């Protein structure tokens, strides 16, 4: 039985584009071939979970049915009632499978049977729909559309994380011929840029250099096991992480465009960020915006509304800590993911102190292209160091 992992090799792209050809012709002439699209999507999702991965496939089906029941039940309840305990319980139930999958490896040698590739990203989507049902911004929830949204094939394994209302609007509206042609042009450009990022640069940084640098860093240990090789490893890993993930995201956006959906972009030149706040507006954007809208803003809103903390600066600091701690835990229950979260919370809090200082002393502080270059340089290094924490290599270096 063949097994096809998304965007893993050229064969996948050829097969997928051939399979999508009738859909493309349909969209070009102003029709969305819904049944055909459903069959192709189901086939390619099935091929992700064939062979040894069949258990993950079963877990995916069970997971989607479970989320569908939760969302349908809550949508129905929400038509007549709206209480906080019910909302909180439903959200807790919705994230429960993900929590089990993330906590299980920290407790013992086995992975949870509930897990499958893409569970985090589906959880983000389901929770987002629950939150918007609570807020009343999603009034009419079509369960068919919810399933299409959850299982939209180009993004199922690793995002970008779209929003239900945006997706549904795109889906209902077939682009005009000239718009669709422009979308296809973008798709072709993203596909080639993605190939360059993931299969050339990602390969060089990740497959050719990274293992050698890791080995050098393991051999030449200095004070605290640190070494110049570790420094090189840090920059190399940051490059690998970006080109691999940005390349993947470009594929996902490109294939979405081919299917007539404007899936949002995930990266916007993150290494040109002027500060950490700016960085999070450019790096893995659909994730950081999800956290901003559904964690940071909600926490802030809650604290302000109930006047739990008076001081505005303190509120933002607490909200940042919660925001990035949740993000850390989401990556996995290991010390380095949690420290990664705390590190970014600390960095953004310090950054805010600096921004306030800068605002107050605007007249005295110089501002020119050299100070901007310095800001980019500092941000880049802080970010690369955070990725070294994230990589887990320090865990191997120090504790294994």
């Amino acid at each position, binding site marked *: 039985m063949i097994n096809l992992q998304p965007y893993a090799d050229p064969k996948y792209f050829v097969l997928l584009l051939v399979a999508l050809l009738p859909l493309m012709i349909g969209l070009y002439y102003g029709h969305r071939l819904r049944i055909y699209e459903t069959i192709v999507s189901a086939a390619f999702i099935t091929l992700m979970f064939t062979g040894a991965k069949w258990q993950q496939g079963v877990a995916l089906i069970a997971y989607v049915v479970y989320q569908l029941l939760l969302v349908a039940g809550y949508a129905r309840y929400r038509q007549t009632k709206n209480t906080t305990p019910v909302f909180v319980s439903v959200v807790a139930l919705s994230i429960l499978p993900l929590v089990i999958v993330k906590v299980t490896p920290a407790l013992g040698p086995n992975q949870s049977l509930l897990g499958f590739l893409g569970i985090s990203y589906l959880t983000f989507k389901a929770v987002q729909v629950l939150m918007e049902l609570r*807020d009343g911004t999603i009034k009419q929830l079509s369960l068919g559309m919810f399933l299409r949204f959850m299982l939209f094939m180009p993004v199922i394994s690793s995002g970008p994380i779209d929003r239900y209302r945006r997706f549904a609007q795109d889906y209902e509206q077939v682009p005009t011929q000239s718009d669709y042609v422009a979308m296809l042009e973008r798709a072709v450009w993203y596909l080639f840029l993605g190939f360059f990022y993931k299969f050339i640069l990602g390969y060089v940084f990740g497959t050719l250099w990274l293992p050698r640098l890791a080995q050098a860093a393991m051999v030449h240990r200095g004070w605290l096991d640190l070494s110049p090789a570790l420094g090189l490893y840090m920059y190399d890993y940051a490059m690998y992480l970006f080109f691999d993930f940005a390349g993947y995201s470009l594929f996902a956006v490109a294939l979405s465009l081919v299917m007539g959906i404007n899936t949002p972009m995930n990266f916007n030149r993150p290494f040109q960020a002027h500060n950490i*706040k700016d960085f999070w507006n450019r790096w893995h954007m659909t994730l950081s915006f999800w956290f901003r*809208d559904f964690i*940071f*803003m909600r926490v*802030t809103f809650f604290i*302000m509304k109930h006047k739990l903390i008076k001081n505005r600066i303190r509120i*933002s600091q607490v*909200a940042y800590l919660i925001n990035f701690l949740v993000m850390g835990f989401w990556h996995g229950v290991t010390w380095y993911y949690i420290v990664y979260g705390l590190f970014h919370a600390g960095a953004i809090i310090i950054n805010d102190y600096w921004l306030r200082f800068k605002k107050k002393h605007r007249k005295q502080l110089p501002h020119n292209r050299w100070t901007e270059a310095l800001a980019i340089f500092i941000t880049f290094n802080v970010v690369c160091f955070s990725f070294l924490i994230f990589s887990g290599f320090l865990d191997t270096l120090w504790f294994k």
Partner: protein
Amino acid sequence: MDTKETVLAILNDLTGEDFAANLDENLFESGLLDSMDTVQLLLELQSQLGVDVPVSEFDRSQWDTPAKIIAKASATA
């Protein structure tokens, strides 16, 4: 005070700037309004104008200028 004046007063409190003459200035691109200010803006709209805007309704592209905020507040008030 009408809705427009109230919104301008709230924005003035948050950013220290008077937007009466710059109703189309982009508040997010210029960095005048961050996430914290946004939440405070929503809370002030709620308490001063009775405009109930949930956080998840907040689509930045539809709230990015004083003029748009005034339009939104007038529509839901």
